[in-house]
């Protein structure tokens, strides 16, 4: 049974059980047809790291929340801490779990010591056992530049191109997998120790770069990502240290005192505000905390209440841009939505019922991580072609240019939809529900509303640029041309923003599932796909699996 089916087939009554602490890791283990020991070991080590971090965070938050909830003066709080020696005992617990974690991790690693080749394949357990030797497509120390290699292949004689292309594909898949594993490794290191120092991360980067033949450009991108991480992490740490009181932290961040209760959860690169009053959440959701913004109105609150959480890219404090995430505790609709997703989430990860907000946290944290791996938009502006085609009375050409332009405008939506797909599927939402939510015309995720209006206004001569266009082609008089342009726009709008977009979303979701079914962990799947444009996911997955199958043979 696949993980997806397992989730979808669960009857409602099982949700009650899901709220209880998970006693047995097998309950939450994901059944897979095939999983390599290497992948499983990575997953288990990561799970161990997460549990260590979870315990530490639960301890810190437990103390903070208890201290704040009773409303005693700091001196009395300190008295209680001293009498119960809670902090010291929690530190002991933290040391114990870390020690158990180190032992378990070392033991798991020891199962592979001396038994792996460069591709991480298990070779032998003891002497005399059969060895499996697979040479990596990129030799250690060799650099592989995908763009340059492809250019070289095109210049080869035709009869040599096919073989060269095969080798290229093998190397590309190998390198992509390596980069994804590197990214996953960085995230695991950061989770284990958010205060990790630059030299440690750089040492890992050099190791990975050598092993997977990363080009100078790829190394530069990775260095930038690490730098970005450290800047954000420092900013988050400094902010939290400066504002230990959650209410004051809210005011420092958004310029006004919160209306209701607010809790702040600090992550490695995130400030997660749990808002218990809809107005506070709406302020963050609408981003009306920015200087010269209007005040939050009823419409903002209504809009905000459609969501359970939000990740925003803006901030009044420069270095905190992209770190702020917020949870809507105030709205009943949002609460139901959150509780539902958290129940599914707890079924997968075995978290506690009283920690249902973690479902929202993981969804929104995904956006923050994504921002670190921001991708540049790929296609060029085609608008000039539209003018040129109309100048030549080439309606097919104009329609084509319009189609390309709409596709270009769709890209931003694809980037956002990719975020949402990764976040929803990671949370455990079903494929059909994810697709339905993202395709809803009146829903939160209608990314093309503004694009449609902009282009329509332009073609109808309603905005500044449109007026120029309208006059240039004398469309006030030339009714046939005007009708022809609008009819082409409607046709292309339907094709690009509805039909093609739906196909891209469906194919993206299918690709994600295909990787999961092939034995990749959830985090590995996300790491493999997060840097790729949504419409390329299928191709990427096909290449990876093709390479994997070859290795098996």
């Amino acid at each position: 049974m696949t993980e997806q089916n397992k989730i979808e087939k669960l009857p409602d009554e099982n949700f009650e059980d899901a709220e209880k602490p998970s006693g047995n890791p097998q309950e939450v283990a994901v059944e897979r047809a095939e999983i390599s020991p290497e992948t499983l070991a990575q997953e288990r080590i990561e799970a161990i790291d997460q549990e260590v971090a979870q315990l530490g965070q639960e301890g810190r938050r437990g103390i903070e929340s208890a201290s704040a909830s009773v409303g005693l003066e700091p001196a009395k709080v300190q008295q209680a801490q001293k009498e119960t020696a809670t902090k010291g005992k929690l530190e002991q617990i933290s040391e114990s779990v870390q020690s158990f974690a180190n032992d378990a991790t070392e033991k798991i690693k020891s199962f592979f010591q001396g038994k792996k080749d460069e591709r991480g394949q298990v070779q032998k357990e003891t002497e005399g056992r059969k060895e499996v030797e697979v040479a990596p497509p990129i030799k250690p120390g060799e650099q592989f530049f995908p763009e340059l290699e492809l250019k070289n292949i095109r210049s080869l004689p035709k009869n040599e191109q096919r073989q060269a292309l095969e080798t290229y594909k093998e190397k590309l898949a190998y390198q992509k997998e390596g980069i994804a594993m590197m990214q996953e490794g960085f995230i695991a290191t950061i989770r284990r120790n958010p205060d990790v120092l630059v030299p440690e991360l750089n040492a890992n980067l050099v190791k990975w770069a050598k092993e997977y033949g990363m080009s100078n450009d790829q190394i530069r991108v990775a260095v930038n990502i690490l730098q970005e991480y450290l800047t954000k992490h420092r900013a988050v740490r400094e902010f939290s240290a400066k504002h230990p009181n959650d209410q004051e932290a809210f005011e420092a961040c958004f310029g006004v005192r919160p209306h209701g209760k607010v809790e702040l959860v600090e992550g490695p690169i995130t400030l997660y505000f749990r808002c218990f009053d809809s107005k506070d959440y709406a302020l963050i959701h609408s981003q009306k905390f920015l200087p010269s913004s209007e005040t939050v109105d009823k419409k903002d609150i209504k809009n905000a209440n459609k969501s359970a959480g939000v990740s925003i890219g803006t901030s009044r404090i420069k270095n905190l841009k992209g770190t702020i995430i917020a949870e809507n505790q105030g709205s009943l609709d949002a609460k139901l939505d959150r509780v539902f997703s958290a129940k599914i989430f707890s079924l997968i990860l075995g978290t506690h019922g009283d920690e249902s907000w973690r479902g929202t946290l993981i969804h929104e944290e995904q956006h923050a991580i994504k921002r670190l791996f921001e991708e540049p938009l790929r296609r060029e502006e085609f608008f000039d072609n539209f003018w040129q085609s109309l100048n030549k009375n080439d309606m097919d050409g104009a329609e084509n240019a319009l189609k390309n332009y709409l596709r270009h405008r769709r890209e931003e939506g694809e980037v956002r939809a990719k975020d949402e797909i990764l976040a929803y599927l990671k949370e455990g939402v079903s494929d059909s529900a994810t697709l339905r939510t993202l395709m809803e015309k009146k829903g939160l995720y209608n990314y093309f509303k503004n694009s449609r209006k902009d282009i329509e206004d332009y073609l109808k001569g309603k905005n500044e640029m449109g007026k120029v266009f309208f006059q240039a082609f004398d469309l006030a008089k030339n009714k046939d041309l005007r009708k022809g342009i609008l009819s082409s726009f409607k046709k292309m709008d339907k094709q690009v923003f509805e039909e093609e977009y739906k196909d891209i979303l469906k194919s993206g979701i299918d690709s994600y599932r295909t990787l999961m079914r092939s034995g990749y962990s959830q985090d590995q799947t996300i790491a493999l796909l997060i840097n790729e444009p949504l419409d390329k996911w299928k191709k990427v997955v096909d290449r990876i699996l093709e390479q994997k199958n070859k290795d098996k043979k």
Partner: protein
Amino acid sequence: MKKDELQKEIIEKINREYEEFHKKFLDLQKKQQKLISEYRKRLEELKMKELKDSVSKDL
């Protein structure tokens, strides 16, 4: 031993190791929850005392 059997054996070992860790984790988690709840109880006692003191002062 064939590659498949070898892999199966390693998978079992990894799972066993993880399960053992997870059990210890759950024990520690329970201990931690108990400590926090004792701490909260003590805070509440202090708060109650504070309230009682302020009421008796008013009287």
